[in-house]
Structure formats: C-alpha cells, structure tokens
C-alpha cells in the first residue's frame, strides 16, 4: 500500500508525468527514426504529421478519441500516397507536398467551424507534454509496446528490404507485407505523440536522434540503440531546461537534440583529421 501511495504521488506531479510520457515516446521513436532515415522517408513522416492535424480536428468535431482518429487519418493518407504514386507521373516529393499541405489546410478550415470549443492551435502544432494525464501515459506505453513488438517481428524483412528490395523479395522475406505494416507503425507513433510533441515537431523527434546515432555508430544495431538513448536524453534534458528557464517543452526537447547532433559531429571531425 505504501508503495502504491508513492507511485500515486509521483504521477500527481505534472513534471514527472511529462518525463515518463516523453521517455516512452523517445523509446518508440528510436528504431522507427532509424528506418525513416535509412529509407529516406523524412518528408513522408512530415506529411503524416501534417495530416495528423486533420485527425485531431475530426476527433474534436465528432468527440472521438484523438489518438485513434489521428492514427486512422495518417494511415489513410499513407495508403492514399502509395496509391497516387502508382497512378500519376508526379514525383514522390511533389505528391507528399500535395498531401501534406492539403490535409493541413483542410484541418485548419475545419477548425474554423468548431466555434463551440476553445481550440488551442499552438498546442496542436507544438504539443503540450506538461498537460499529459495518466490515461495518456497508459496509451503511450500500451501503444508503444504494441508498435515495438510488431516491429521486432517484421524487423528482418523490413531491414533486408531497406538494404535491397529485390534481394529481400527473391529470398522469401515478403517485403511488400512488412513495408505496408511499417507505414501503419509510422502512423501509430505519430498518433501516440501528437498531443505531447505536436504536429510540427514529431518528425524532429524521429529524425534527429537517429541522425545523431548515424554519426557515431558502425552497425545497424548500434545505431538503433544510440538513437533510442539520444532520444531519451533529449527528452529528459529538454524538459529540465524548459522547467529551469521557462521555455515551451516540445521545442526545448528538439533544441537539446540538435545540440547533441552538433556534439556527435565532433568524433567524425577528429576521425577525419586523424586519417589525413
């Protein structure tokens, strides 16, 4: 009972809740972020998170669960994109831009109709990790566990297809299936983190820790582990900084990650000098 009480007190503190939720997101973002970098999907992640805004608006309009609604919209946009790529001659990046900005615009137009509720647009774009409640934390950890478990099972197929699709297909890894699931997982992580990190910054949390890891790792497994750690450190340090100097929490996390990225360039620099 004593322990339950302590746990209760811990969760009562908004800052601790933010830390726990943020660390959860960083752990999910680590491996997925690596895949996003390897597959050059950063703009794809951006498109999904922009469309997440539409998901949130719809959730408010129909008083739906936000996470679920964002997941559905992101997944639909991702599938739409794959479909459009087969039908038009436009380049992938043009299609991504088209979908990103049109879903963002539709979301913003819909917000205009929602006069009955007070709507925090800033919160939506940049997230408010300090406002998470116990229910949010539960969703992050349950959803995160599901995402990581699925990722574990499709990893070999997904990874081999990332290196070379033909090789993966020829040797029976069924890359078409794992690619499809990966798209859904990406929609999932965006849905889980939109409330906390916000539509504009999610891709940052996916990309920057993985980019840090790329600078200092020599094998894929190492890169995944370092990316996860870098994400966790960014969240913890970013939150403490925001508390200390009273800045917004989401952007502070990203700024800390950026600083870590700059530091991670140093070993590369030294190595380059030594090799001369």
């Amino acid at each position, binding site marked *: 009972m004593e322990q339950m009480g302590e746990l209760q007190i811990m969760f009562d503190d908004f800052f601790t809740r933010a830390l726990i939720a943020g660390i959860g997101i960083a752990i999910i973002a680590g491996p997925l972020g690596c895949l996003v970098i390897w597959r*050059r999907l950063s703009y794809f992640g951006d498109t999904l998170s922009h469309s997440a805004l539409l998901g949130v608006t719809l959730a408010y309009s129909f008083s739906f669960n936000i996470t679920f609604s964002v997941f559905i919209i992101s997944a639909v946009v991702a599938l739409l994109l794959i479909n459009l790529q087969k039908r038009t001659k436009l380049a992938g990046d043009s299609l991504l831009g088209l979908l990103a900005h049109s879903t963002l615009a539709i979301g913003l137009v819909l917000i205009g109709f929602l006069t009955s509720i007070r709507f925090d647009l800033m919160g939506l774009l940049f997230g408010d990790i300090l406002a998470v409640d116990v229910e949010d934390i539960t969703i992050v950890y349950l959803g995160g566990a599901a995402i990581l478990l699925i990722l574990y099972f499709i990893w070999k197929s997904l*990874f081999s297809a990332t290196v*070379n699709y*033909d*090789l*993966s297909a*020829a040797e029976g*890894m069924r890359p078409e299936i794992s690619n499809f699931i990966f798209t859904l997982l990406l929609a999932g992580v965006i849905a889980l983190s939109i409330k906390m990190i916000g539509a504009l910054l999610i891709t940052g949390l996916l990309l920057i820790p993985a980019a840090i890891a790329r600078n200092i790792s*020599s*094998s894929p497994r190492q890169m995944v582990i370092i990316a996860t750690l870098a994400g966790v450190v960014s969240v913890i340090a970013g939150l403490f900084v925001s508390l200390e100097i009273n800045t917004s929490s989401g952007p502070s996390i990203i700024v800390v990650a950026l600083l870590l990225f700059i530091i991670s360039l140093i070993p590369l620099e030294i190595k380059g000098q030594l090799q001369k």
Partner: protein
Amino acid sequence: MAENNNLLVKLDNCGVYKSSKWIVRGISLEIHKGKIVTLIGPNGSGKTTSAKMILKILKSDEGQIKNFASKMAYVPQKINIDWTMPLRVVDFMKLTSHINNLEIVDALKLTGVDNLLYNDIHNLSGGEFQRVLIARAIAKKPDLLVLDEPVQGVDFNGEIALYNLIKKICSTLNCGILLISHDLHFVMSATDHVICLNGHICCSGTPRSIVKNSAYIDLFGEHNATTLSLYQHDHDHSHGTDGRVTNNV
C-alpha cells in the same frame, strides 16, 4: 521420374509487359538440381527481367511459372547501399538468414574475403563487394542460386577462381544455378544449358549444340563466334537495334 524430382523451376511461355511493350516474351525454360543454366544476350535483351521472373520478384504477364525451390538465393547485378545505413560485411551476410559467425567466415573464405568481416560495406572496392555478394548467397545454402553477372569488377585471376567456385558449389550443394554472364568462354565450357536471349529465346541447348547455331553468331558477331570456335546455328530471323525480330531469313 527422377528427372521430375530434380526440377526446381519451370517457365512455360512467360513474359513481362511494361510501359506498353514486352520486355521479354515467350520464355520457356527448366532449371534442375545440380545443373547450371546460363542466360546470354546483348544489353537490354531481358536477361535480368527473366531472372526476376524466376525469383518471383516480377510477375509473369502470361504463361505459367512453376517454382519448386524451397530456398532461393540471389546475387543481383547492381546493388546500391545507402550511406545513411551503417552496415558491416558481417551484418550484410546475415541479411535474410540466421547464420552464425563461423558459417559466415567459412563462406567468405570461399570467395577470399574473410579478412573483411568487420569492414564497413561502403568502403569495399567493386570486386570485393561482388565477392561478398557471392559469399552471402552461398552461405544461405540455397537449392536455387541466381547469379546476375556475378564477377563484374573482379580481377582476372579472381574471375577464374570464382567461376570454378560456382561450378563446385553447384555439385556440393546439389543446387540449380541460373547464371547471367558475358563470359562466353566460361559459359561454353562449364554450363549445362545455354539460352540466348534477345527479347525472346533466340536459341537454346547444350553449349555444343549452340555452337552449331547461327542465331548466336548474329547475336554476338562473327569474330567472337570464331574466336571461341563455338557457335554455329541456322538463324531463322534477325534483329533490329531494339532487339525486335525484323525479318525472317
């Protein structure tokens, strides 16, 4: 029925249709355990496309494919590994199979690159990378091995050694091999069945029978044919620059 038990792949009048034209058409062939089938033909004749059909990477748009192979391994012609992925030779060897380091080293020894185990894959030379690709495919112990120009960029001595290795693997693993090669000397001396491709199968048979076929001379030029003293067969058609049949002779 022993013959049937050894059958790995059978293509019956298959083809791939893309961007409103047939890349290859009318491909019929069989690959058996312990035999080497070679595809030869000029650039753009559909060799890689045919290989991809056999590997089930591409679907055949007509005809029928029967594939009895339980484990296929592939050495693609071109492979480009993005710099954003840190990848060592050892990681690459495990790409599609669960094998231990001992098996990996054994396979790398066969192609003479076991010293590169922990090297970054991006820093290998073209020839070294080819050797790693071949070792990876062999390490899988496949029953069907598809090699698309496997010795490109390999030095002269290495080329001979690797071709000998391919021959040896075929009998030790008792696997079927589909080889795409421009090395007519090896093709004619070491393979069991040769298929000349130019959008369709121009001629096919044992190296000896191909020698006596004239489609081959048309395809590869008189000089090559006579140098290798191999090909002579009666050609019943000729090709335009795009490989299409232009007229009957």
